[in-house]
């Protein structure tokens, strides 16, 4: 049988069960997602400026969404904020995919651009 005290963090070690660390990891995850949007916007920008700018503009909005549950938010606000932003990001990705599909099918291509120095 294991000792329950064995799972408790030693003095000086970070407490992995602390909500603050979970919040920080989630916030960083939102930042990475916003960077992914920016990267996609950069790729599209090469082919279609307007579409690229639209996707690039989504990136700071996604980053801002990730900051909505700051340390000042109460636990009761979490499910509402969480559900809304998850739906927003799903709609954003589907919209961005459709825009990318249009650019891929209808847009002018630069064949061999990857091979050029």
């Amino acid at each position, binding site marked *: 049988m294991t000792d329950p005290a064995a799972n408790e963090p030693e003095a000086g070690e970070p407490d992995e*069960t602390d*909500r603050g660390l*979970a*919040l920080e*990891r*989630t916030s960083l*995850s*939102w930042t*990475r*997602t916003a960077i*992914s*949007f920016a*990267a*996609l916007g950069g*790729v*599209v920008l*090469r*082919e279609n400026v307007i579409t690229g700018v639209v996707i690039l503009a989504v990136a700071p909005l996604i980053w801002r969404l990730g900051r909505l549950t700051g340390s000042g938010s109460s*636990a*009761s606000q*979490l*499910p509402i904020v*969480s*559900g809304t932003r*998850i*739906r927003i*990001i*799903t709609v954003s*990705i*589907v919209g*961005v*995919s*459709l825009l*990318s*599909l249009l*650019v*891929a*099918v209808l*847009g002018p*291509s*630069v*064949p*061999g*651009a*990857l*091979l050029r120095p």
Partner: protein
Amino acid sequence: MSRSGRFAAWWPGGADPGEGHEPDPRFTFANERTFLAWSRTALALVVAGLGIVQLLPPFPGVPAGRHLLGVPLIVLGAVLAIVAYGEWVRNQRALRRGDPLPRSVMPWILAAAIAGMAVISAIVLLLSALR
């Protein structure tokens, strides 16, 4: 299942938003991070598809080769984002009810899609090399 019931199935609280109890915020955050990781995977697929169509040199003898490889990746990115949302809802509902977490279909979808894309890539390359 009624129309409202089908809609409710895509809502974290199920038919009744107040169903179950609010889970530990750490679990809610973990579920959210998993969803975000799948979202980034979806975006990466879209970037890859767009890059193939727009930047790769054409395959000799297979004029539609780049579209054959790139367009499915972009569509897969959109599908993955929608399925990831469904998974997030199912997991959140299970957390609220205290049920075991449901099995995820996402790895299966991704593995099958990557295997399919590998086969299509091999066919396009072979056709291109033979002409």
